[in-house]
């Protein structure tokens, strides 16, 4: 046997906490690197000047007042889902079912809009839409929570699978409510009467959504940081055993928190269906249930930081889309750019949490 141990060229070790400015410097560098790589890729493909490309990214979000509103609206919905997932994540309950919870919320909203329009006053219809969507989302979120609390099932898989059930459920109702016959789509619900459409504020379609989500954001911050529930969530997240030791009913906290998480996701579905889209499709969530996971993680589960992370993701994806439009590229190109950027941003978290140790000169050992 050799006595000599092999020293790897690089080995990875966990870092102790680093000061916030170093962490943010690393994130900043990652972002710059991402933009540089995006520019290189775009220049190779389009042959345009890279500054033009950066300008186009900017134009995608700030090119006109309409674009600014679309940016805000997209941030609002994404943020709402991220806020919904956060209490569960803080509890180390990996709720990957945001998509499904939003979809059933949207389905409940659409059901109210289609079945009750014209039969009850509009204000009552909207109240019912809100209640139904929250209830539907809460039920969808609670099912995996009960299984987790009672039988310790794997919540990651369970919530994920619930997404597919929700998609099929929505697909079924689309066929049931399709107009015209056989078209496989519902179209805009109550286009003539606008029954159940959330009202415009100050003449702006998206104002109400933005304000509601801003309120939810502050409320979630307070709830997690200052309420007893918020404290219990953190303790359960840190260690279930500690939580039990101090007398917290873990099962109850899991179910209660998922009820909240699912309810808020369902509400986000209502904001989409009742507030802006006014229709129901199986793809209406546009993957936000998953993107929100990243928003929440990158912000370290802090609701206020999530405003920034959701802004960043929406800003970049809209910018990437604008590049594809302006330079006549396929929308897949936008996906490539978004992928590059996310790769760098997520990668930077690795360098914040871990340190690379390079092998010292061999000579010293000899």
């Amino acid at each position, binding site marked *: 046997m050799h006595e000599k141990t092999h020293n790897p060229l690089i080995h990875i070790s966990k870092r102790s906490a680093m000061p916030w400015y170093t962490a*943010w410097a690393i994130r900043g560098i990652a*972002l710059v690197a991402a933009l540089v790589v995006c520019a290189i890729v775009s220049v190779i493909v389009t042959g345009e000047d890279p500054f033009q490309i950066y*300008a186009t*990214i900017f134009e995608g979000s700030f090119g006109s007042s309409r674009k600014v509103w679309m940016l805000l609206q997209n941030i609002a919905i994404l943020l709402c889902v991220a806020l919904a997932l956060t209490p569960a994540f803080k509890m180390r309950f990996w709720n990957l079912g945001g998509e499904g919870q939003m979809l059933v919320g949207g389905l409940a909203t659409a059901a109210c809009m289609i079945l009750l329009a014209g039969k009850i006053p509009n204000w009552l219809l909207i109240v019912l839409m809100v209640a139904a969507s929250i209830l539907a989302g809460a039920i969808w979120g609670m099912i995996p929570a009960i299984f987790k609390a009672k039988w310790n099932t794997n919540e990651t898989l369970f919530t994920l699978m619930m997404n597919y059930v929700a998609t099929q459920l929505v697909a079924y109702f689309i066929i049931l409510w399709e107009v015209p016959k056989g078209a496989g789509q519902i179209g805009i619900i109550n*286009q003539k009467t606008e029954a159940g459409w959330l009202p415009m504020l100050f003449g702006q379609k998206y104002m109400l959504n933005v304000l509601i989500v801003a309120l939810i954001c502050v409320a979630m911050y307070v709830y997690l940081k200052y309420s007893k529930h918020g404290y219990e969530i953190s303790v359960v997240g840190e260690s279930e055993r500690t939580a039990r030791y101090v007398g917290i009913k873990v099962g109850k906290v899991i179910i209660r928190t998922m009820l909240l998480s699912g309810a808020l996701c369902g509400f986000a579905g209502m904001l989409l269906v009742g507030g802006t889209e006014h229709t129901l499709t199986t793809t209406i969530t546009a993957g936000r249930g998953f993107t929100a996971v990243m928003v929440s993680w990158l912000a370290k589960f802090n609701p206020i930081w999530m405003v920034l992370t959701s802004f960043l993701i929406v800003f970049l994806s809209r910018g990437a889309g604008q590049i594809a439009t302006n330079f006549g590229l396929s929308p897949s190109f936008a996906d490539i750019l978004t992928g590059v950027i996310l790769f760098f941003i997520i990668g930077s978290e690795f360098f914040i949490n871990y340190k690379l140790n390079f092998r010292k000169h061999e000579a010293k050992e000899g």
Partner: protein
Amino acid sequence: MKKVLALLLALVLVIGLVACGETATTETTETTETTETANNVKVGFIYLHDEQSTYDLNFMNAAKEACEKLGVEYVQKVGIPEGQECYEAAMELVDEGCNIVFADSFGHEDYMIQAAKECPDVQFCHATGTKAHTEELSNYHNAFASIYEGRYLAGIAAGMKVAEMIDNGEITAEQAKIGYVGAYTYAEVISGYTSFFLGLRSVVPEATMEVTFTGSWYDMALETEGAQKLIDDGCVLISQHADSLGAPSTCEAAGVPNVSYNGSTIAAGPNTFIVSSRINWAPYFEYIIGCVANGEAIDTDWTGTLATGSVELSEINEAVAAEGTAEAIEAAKAALEAGTLHVFDTATFTVGGETLESYTADVDTDEAYTGDTEVIADGYFHESEFRSAPYFDLQIDGITLLDTKF
């Protein structure tokens, strides 16, 4: 406080970086807004998918052809889903100075109507939609083409091929069963496969057809699966109304002849492609650009025909097509144009064993799908006359639907 600072810092980083070359693009948007005059037409196109979809590619080619021919500026937005994104895309095109906005997919309709209501000075044109004649908006228009005539002619090519197989002893007359991959059980698809089948049966009277649906206008995997299912079921020829290359590629792999749609797919099936029918949208685009340039009103419903050059067949693949196919198609085409032949002649098909005397179709779209217009007169079903989009939704004898879940 520290957190706020960090937040600001990050924001500055992001915005500062991308703001560098901002001026150039703002200028271009301004020029397009200021140079817009009555006879300066700018067209915005909204497509559901990208050029991978044969359906959207057909529109893109026509847009390019028409706009370059007339020398008008145009902007294209690709991959716009059938949702709020369509409304936003339409409004953005208006912001960019377009005075015609065109959308190509059926599900875009409601969002186009929404945009049309908000921008009365811009013309919104929509292919395959059904609502223009009931919306009463002067700036919202539907368009389609009498593609059932093109399908019928393509059906004749299919019939010639099947007849050749029977003559060569490859199959018996009882085995003359063909397959069709459809998207939805929607009138446009039903009208399409029925006219195709009637064309086939005008050559091989004993032929039957099986239809399967994918529940999507574009889904490579489902279309491949559907075509394979039909081939395994004994179908000797396949056609499709769905927009990926799923069915043509499957046919090529299995060596089963294919009659295509939206344009020639000979590249995907050099040994099996026979012919393809398609709508040529260039005449419509030229028409609407002309109308706006001259300040004339655009028809609420515009139906392109063989005569306008809107309904076309691709070049026939002589290597696969039966002998005499071109002549048979020409003869039928002349008869269709002369009005001596009608695709949906009630003497050529039965529904539930009965010849139809009368049928009220759902021309005015509503949630309950109620029939509202008598469409049978002078011995034939008057397709695409009361509105441009097809409304033939009868299940005629000889066609078996394998599934109707969509």
